């Protein structure tokens, strides 16, 4: 029987799914009896969010902390990722050997870095720096720079060849072809993806607080422990507002660049 590559992948995925259904311990999937009253509490919090002035100040401070973590991290990630993406794209080298070597080596390194989740990076870095802001920023910036560099390098590679050939016929070197051809052709995609990753970074920054770093996640955890669901909802609203704002800002910037 001949099986195409795509159906082979489909068969493997289907088998894995069926196996997981069989292996799963379904007895544990039944909600706890206290779970239903918990949902009740959460819903009540949703209907009565805690908009008291004292708590709003706490929420704003937590949001601000998350913003500073996320923004510093994405900024650092971009500073690292952009030059790395040039190397990972292999477009800077003329000789085929150097090109293949740089693509293979750098991409392998990038895969290595991004296969470790930011939470694990945070644990590893906490050993070095303790639970300090620098741990938080680096834990986000390191894997994010690897993700950004990989995707940017794909963008830089997947551009039409004809305009690049024309630039080379004007005497452009590989660096000049990058500057005048590849980057202008993809910078809008880079910006778009960069903003998407900024959103992800803010979300991750919020979650990082669970391991003891300040921010929205930390406050959610504190309020959860006290079962103040009205406060939890306010914090979630702040988080949603934050992500929506970044999305709005990104689209606005893209539109202004399109004109």
């Amino acid at each position, binding site marked *: 029987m001949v099986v195409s590559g795509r159906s082979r992948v489909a068969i493997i995925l289907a088998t894995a799914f069926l196996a997981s259904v069989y292996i799963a311990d379904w007895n544990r999937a039944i909600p706890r009896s206290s779970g239903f009253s918990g949902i009740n509490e959460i819903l009540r919090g949703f209907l009565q969010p805690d908009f008291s002035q004292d708590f709003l100040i706490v929420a704003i401070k937590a949001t601000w902390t998350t913003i500073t973590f996320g923004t510093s991290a994405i900024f650092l990630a971009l500073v690292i990722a952009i030059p790395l993406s040039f190397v990972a794209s292999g477009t800077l080298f003329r000789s085929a050997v150097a090109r293949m070597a740089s693509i293979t080596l750098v991409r392998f390194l990038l895969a290595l870095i991004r296969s470790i989740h930011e939470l694990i990076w945070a644990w590893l870095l906490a050993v070095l720096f303790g639970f300090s802001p620098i741990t938080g920023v680096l834990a986000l910036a390191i894997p994010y720079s690897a993700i950004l560099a990989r995707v940017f390098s794909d963008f830089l590679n997947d551009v039409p060849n004809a*305009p690049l050939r024309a630039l080379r*016929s*004007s005497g*452009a*070197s590989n660096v000049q072809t990058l500057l*005048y*051809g590849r980057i202008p052709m993809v910078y809008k995609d880079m910006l778009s993806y960069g903003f998407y990753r900024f959103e992800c970074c803010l979300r991750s920054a919020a979650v990082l607080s669970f391991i003891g770093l300040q921010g929205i996640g930390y406050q959610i955890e504190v309020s959860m422990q006290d079962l103040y669901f009205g406060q939890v909802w306010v914090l979630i609203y702040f988080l949603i507002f934050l992500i929506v704002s970044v999305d709005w800002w990104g689209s606005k910037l893209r539109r202004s660049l399109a004109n």
Partner: protein
Amino acid sequence: MTLAYRVNDVSFEAEGNKIIQHVSLSVKTGERVAILGASGAGKTTLLRLLAAQIKPNTGEISLYGENTSDLDSGEKLSRYVGVINQQYDLIQELSVRNNVMAGNLGRWGMWRSMLSLLSTIDSDIGTRALERVGLSDKTHQRLSRLSGGEQQRVAVARLIVQDPLLIIADEPVASLDPTRAFEVMSLLHNITSPTDKTLISALHSYDLTTHFFERVIGLRRGEVSFDMPVKELSKDDLEKLYSVDQDD
């Protein structure tokens, strides 16, 4: 008169297809040569061989005495040959000015090219080139806002800035209406003829060929079918060139 090209028994094949077969010809400096032929006759491949973008499998092309197989893209080649194609040659996201100034890249180092993207250094030559093609009012517009005919004039302005010894044009006006086509061909003619630059262009139009060129080469299935002064070109020759073979 010095020779721009000496092409000696050149063949080129890709993926087992013989695209160019045993072509020999020479082109003198300052000549204006039209290359005619049906689609798939090998015009683009021949032009890319002449521009040293690809190298012949057998035979030799000498460009001002240098074997094109030894010439790689870069500053030196860009001083010999400038290339203009049907379309897709320019960077849509850059301004008109930056597209034109890209003609300087062979002469510029990295820092200077970077600076030119950000500021307007050395703009004189670009301004003059845009004046010559009649687009000085569009200097700071994004290229994608220009029409097809205007974009092709920007490509000509880039060639003016690059200032090569000869220009290779691959159906430069194929996607333009007759009026725009005539305008762009006139521009190419004007930037080559007074300075004795060589112009080699693939074309589809008999009228443009007879109006702007003095020599015509007919290409059929990768071979030179005829090579003669334009005055001698008859409609009969053309019909034979574009006719479909019985055995096809």
